[in-house]
């Protein structure tokens, strides 16, 4: 188990890095797919098999597909994912340092948390038993009893998503860039091409 865990961990890190560093968005999607799959495995290892399944169904089956659609949609444009000039070049190093420092400090401090903390959670209020922990039944029962309210709210969250997307996508009026702005865009594009397509 431990070896598997480490393998999964390495896969997770690697695919995460791949996701953010892939040169094309499609590769990122593929990396993310791998990441999610590995994540699902690790969920199952944590006795959360239902979540593992959900992870695959929703993320891989729904969200990533959406991403692919959008990539396809936007790629049909003039120049697919051509990148303009980097307007924040100077920010790269400070950003990297900030992230590294934050991460370093956190790991340094959290390294002390090796085992489960010996502080009392109110376990008595937790529904379900150790034997059934993580099962669909256990999960479902909690979801429809104790956590009924959050579940109801998600209904409206999804409703918002549906209505919002309909309104946004159903927007017939296409914002025309002003001629001046279009010229600017063209110029920037030319510059990018002349520089030999950085990134």
């Amino acid at each position, binding site marked *: 188990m431990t070896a598997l865990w480490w393998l999964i961990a390495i896969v997770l890190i690697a695919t995460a890095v791949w996701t953010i560093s892939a040169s094309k968005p499609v590769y990122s999607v593929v990396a993310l797919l791998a990441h999610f799959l590995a994540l699902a495995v690790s969920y199952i290892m944590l006795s959360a098999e239902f979540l593992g399944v959900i992870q695959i169904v929703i993320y891989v089956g729904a969200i990533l597909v959406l991403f692919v659609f959008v990539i396809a949609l936007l790629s049909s444009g003039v120049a697919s994912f051509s990148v303009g000039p980097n*307007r*924040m070049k100077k*920010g790269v190093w*400070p*950003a990297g340092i*900030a*992230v590294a*420092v*934050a991460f370093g*400090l*956190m790991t*340094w*401090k959290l390294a002390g948390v090796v085992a489960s903390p010996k502080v009392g959670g109110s376990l008595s209020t937790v529904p379900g038993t150790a034997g059934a922990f993580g099962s669909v039944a256990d999960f479902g029962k909690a979801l429809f009893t104790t956590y009924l309210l959050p579940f109801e709210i998600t209904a409206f969250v999804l409703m918002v998503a549906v209505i919002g997307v309909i309104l946004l996508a159903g927007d017939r009026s296409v914002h025309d860039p002003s001629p001046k702005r279009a010229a600017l865009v063209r110029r920037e594009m030319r510059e990018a091409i002349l520089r030999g397509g950085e990134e």
Partner: protein
Amino acid sequence: MHYPLLLAIWLLPLAGAILCWFLGPQLKGAAGWLACAMLGLSFVATMLSWSSGTQHVAGHEGAHQLLGSWLPGFDFGLLLDPLSLIWATIITGVGFLIHLYSVGYMHGDRAFARFFAYMNFFVFAMLTLVLSDNFIGLLVGWGLVGLASYFLIGFWFDRPSAVAAARKAFVINVVGDVGIMLAIFILFANLHSLSFADVFAGVGSLSTGTLLAVCAFLFVGAAAKSAQVPLHTWLPDAMEGPTPVSALIHAATMVTAGVYLIARCAPLWSHSSGAQLLVGTIGGLTALAGAILGTAQWDIKRILAYSTMSQIGYMIMGVGVGAYQGGVAHFFTHAFFKAQLFLASGLVIHALANEQDVRRMGGLAKKLPFAFVAMGTGVLAICGIPPFSGFFSKDQVIYGTLAHGHPWLYAVGILTAGITAYYMCRLLFVTFFGEYRGDVDPSYLGIRHPELAGTAAHEAAPSTHDHAPAWIMSVPVGILIVPTITIGFLMAGGDRSWWSRFFAAQFPAGHVPATAISELQTTLIVLAVVVAGIGIAVWRYATRTAQDDAVERLRAESVHMPAILSNAFYFDAALDMLFVRSSQLLGTFFGRTLDPQVIDGAVREAAWSAGKLGTIVRWFQTGLLRTYAFLIVVGAACFIAYYALAGGMH
């Protein structure tokens, strides 16, 4: 102790002033008569109060009227005692005559009523000054006479020179006011009261230094008001005012307020030998300086102005060293003869259509015999020729300096007497003897700016308008001749004179040591010097040869006048440089540079910095999503760093 008649003496002129001011357009010519009437009534009331003013009741002298109080220590009242009685008599009496004279002199002036409003107001103010029983009231009067003087000097306010002279007089007088204020503060801080009675009773508790300071500051006020060196420069300029004003304010009454102040505060001075020395010295210097400068003037009124300054120097010297009776006596006689001199000069000026330069006069004795007589008696009086009034009073002062142990001042007094005789006779001879020079080209006479000669045709323009009856101007002058000649006999007779007895309670005669030179010898010495002075004047201006080439001689004298004399010892320039220019420079620097550029500049700088901060904030607001994300992450990193360090400290 109430004496309501005092209120009448005091307030009648004020009523006249208010009536003339507000009803001026309706009263027209009657304003003059109204003012005279008010003042006349006041004079009558003064005369009726004579007995009350000299009474002794319960250890207090004179009549007293309580007015009111502001605060504990700030109580007001009126007091009529021999000293104020003398002043009130002169103010209302001589004032009345000069008012009468003015009815003729100012006839036809378009601000006729306003003139009398000011004049009456002045009398009111002067009465406030001398009748007050406390320092605050005195200060009130002190300030108000300065104001009246300001108005009257600048009476013809469309004339820039008059405006400037008025301003100068006013500001210097405020310097004097401030001096008195300082003295008041010291007195109040030490004695918690400002009434004369309390202060003089408590004088023993003051230290020598404090007393000297009080006297010195009081004297600053006296010097400013009474044109003592170096605060005298306004007085000659003040001659810009109409001649009756010069007679009343700048000769007879207001300028002697300093004398009054010192005489009033005699208990202070008596306790401070330092103050006596200081004031006596300044008085002597002023007497000498005024006399010397009097020899170098050509304007008839300026000659009289310097002579006034010089004579007041005598008075101040007298009261300063402790010869109070002498100083006051000289004030008394001087009020008559100097008023007469001014009024006589006014007759001349009036007759010559405002010509004031004596070089353009000459031979007027035939044309204006009455004026000549008036001027002549006045000159004799001021020279101290017996039996004219000046003889008695001046001798008292000169001898008083010696008697109180100031031989140098004694010498100065005698010398000044000679010079006085010289320049007053010079005035008389040049004006009235010889041939009339009014038709001589001014440049032949050495007049440097002929176009500025005299004070131009603003004064009343008498020749064009219908003349008032001549007697209105002549009668007052005629009346004044009588006291000019006779009043000195009140002082005749040393300690047994009426004058001495009158003031016996006011100025208790201290122990006067025997002097090396007796009073009689002094009289003779002074007379000799005076005769010498007259002799020189006769030699220079009145001999036949001198009169024949008068034009030539006057021009030579004008051209060769030493610069130090024609610039009046550079007092004006020095004061201007020291105080006026420096204040103006500072004011300009503060107003033009420090205020807008440094102080406000700093504020603007701060505001600009805030604006600059605004641009910094906007600079971070690049519009780029990743910048914002970057800011968030940096903020988060700071949070994390904080919690990493702070989170473990438990």
